[in-house]
């Protein structure tokens, strides 16, 4: 069952112009990022949640928790890659659910040129309904943080319906799922 969802998610993400890799363990994250992007460490900013949730150390970039809020915007505008954790993967539409978090500001997935999401296979949901029901259980009414759903890179078809990738948001979007095929 989970495998079916995983494959569906993967193909949906690819259809909308993103990429999706599966890694057996958190240690594979660095390899995948290194093989895709040749950025210096300073150009990569990583959400504080990734290290915590996956109990990892030595990730190839700077942790956002170490950046002063006043410097954050300038830093992220210069950054090449923003790496976030997530709160759900929706197989039906190839969507990543990001709930705002003190260690994961919205700008991190918005300002850098590239956005990569780290997720666990157990975070897969068949549809958005199921994920939203879960969110409502986790947070009492009036305390749900803001939520962003991402289903691909920034795009437009405003000029003669020609698809162009990369308008105002990240020009590339990828997902690394920690799990097994």
């Amino acid at each position, binding site marked *: 069952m989970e495998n079916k969802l995983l494959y569906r998610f993967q193909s*949906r993400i690819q259809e*909308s112009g993103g990429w999706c890799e599966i890694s057996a363990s958190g240690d594979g994250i660095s390899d995948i990022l290194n093989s895709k992007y040749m950025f210096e460490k300073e150009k990569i900013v990583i959400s504080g949640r990734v290290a915590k949730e996956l109990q990892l150390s030595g990730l190839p970039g700077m942790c956002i928790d170490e950046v002063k*809020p006043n410097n*954050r*915007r300038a830093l992220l*505008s210069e950054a090449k890659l923003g790496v976030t954790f997530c709160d759900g993967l*929706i197989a*039906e*539409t*190839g*969507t990543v659910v990001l709930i*705002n*978090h*003190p*260690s*994961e*500001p*919205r*700008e991190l997935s*918005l300002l850098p040129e590239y956005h990569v999401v780290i997720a666990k296979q157990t975070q897969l949901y068949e*549809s*958005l*309904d199921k994920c*939203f*029901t879960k969110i*409502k259980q986790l947070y009492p*009414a*009036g*305390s*749900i*943080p*803001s*939520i*962003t*759903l*991402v*289903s*691909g*890179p*920034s*795009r*437009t*078809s*405003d*000029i*003669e*319906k*020609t698809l*162009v990738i*990369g*308008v*105002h*948001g*990240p020009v590339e979007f990828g997902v690394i799922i920690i799990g097994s095929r």
Partner: protein
Amino acid sequence: MKSSQFKIRARQAVGDADLRSKIKKATGISLLKREQVVSEIADWEDLRRRAHELRKETVDNIDSYLRRFIESARRNNAIVHEADDHKTANKIIYDIIRRVSAHTVVKSKSMITEELHLNTMLEENGIRVIETDLGEYIVQLAGETPSHITAPALHKSKEDIARLFHEKLNIPYSDDPVKLTAVARERLRDEFLKARVGITGVNFATADTGTLTIVENEANARLCTTLPEVHIAIMSIEKIIPSFDDLPLFLKLLPRSASGQRMTSYVTCINGPRSYHNPDGPRQLHIVILDGGRKQLAKHPAWKEALYCIRCGACMNICPIYQSVGGHAYGSVYPGPIGSVITPTLFNMKDAQDLPFASSLCGACTDICPVKIDLHHHLLFERREIVNRGYKSSVEKIGMVLWRWIMLSPGRLEFAGRVGWFFRKLLGKNMPAPGWTPHRQFPRIPLRSFRSIMRSDKKHGK
């Protein structure tokens, strides 16, 4: 632009082969993509029915849902403003901008702000408004208005846009959409980083959690709602849906119907301004809720359905009239079938009296509408209302009385047929019929009518 000039503009548009081919191409692509992603959903009809019920439930009880939404939004620390009419809404928005002494605002695509003529008002008061959706940016540079609710620059070819960018932005001429988009990205990113106020519309507002949901592809709405210190979200009352639990349903219907996507690249669900859990985003979140005649419309037993609309634009894409005349001909912020339904009922029936007649009543709009609005029947009933109110000319009225008198008797109908045949014979191809023959030939009328053939066949026992 006024709806009262529909006929003149429609005639011009129909004569513009270039415009027609641009519209046909764009609407055709949208419909094809929609078909692909709708056909993979087995219970699409059920979803439409459920969505219709939910929209009905909300509009029928709009006062109580509105109260609940406002309570929830305030609990989220949003500042809520209610505006009975357009003027009040504009004043509220202007005051918010003045209070933070901002001179520039960045704005993402929103039909309600078009309805408010917000940009004109703000610019008259010395505030620079920057449209950031690529289509809207193009339309703003050209000094025009959107011609489609989800694809504002649908009436422009890439060559049109290349010329526009070349002239207005001083860049070398290029008609490559990738290059043109890159120019917009670069110019606008700076504006986003500088702006202190961001203005957006709202797609859905949930009564139980006070969540504002914005659906988009470019990330300009995300930037408008994340970077500036103040976010002003503008919505009309009917954007409310009962519950956060209903969002997935509408998010299944809207992107598929609007752009043929399973989900747009981004959906932002805003639950309040900056806080511990929302470490960035605006410090102030204002929600301006416009009535603008909607509470009144919600009481009408039939036309309240127009308020169920989720502004996907599918009815425009599929409408043979829209495909032929384009969005500007309607002279309304809302073109196409839903525009023809809502413009006379919400704004001014006298001015917009031609719009309900701009339909072949084929019903394609009703079939495609994700919330099952009975669009073509509303157009029909609005026609009756327009006649009852006496907006039609006396010539037309006399013609209709005469036609009715003829149709009520088989003998008279047959006689009329003969008279028609006689004149067709006499005048040949030059037989005049205003509104018809300038563009087409009057058809030949056979000497023997269908009924006389039937009669003689019967006599000869066939």
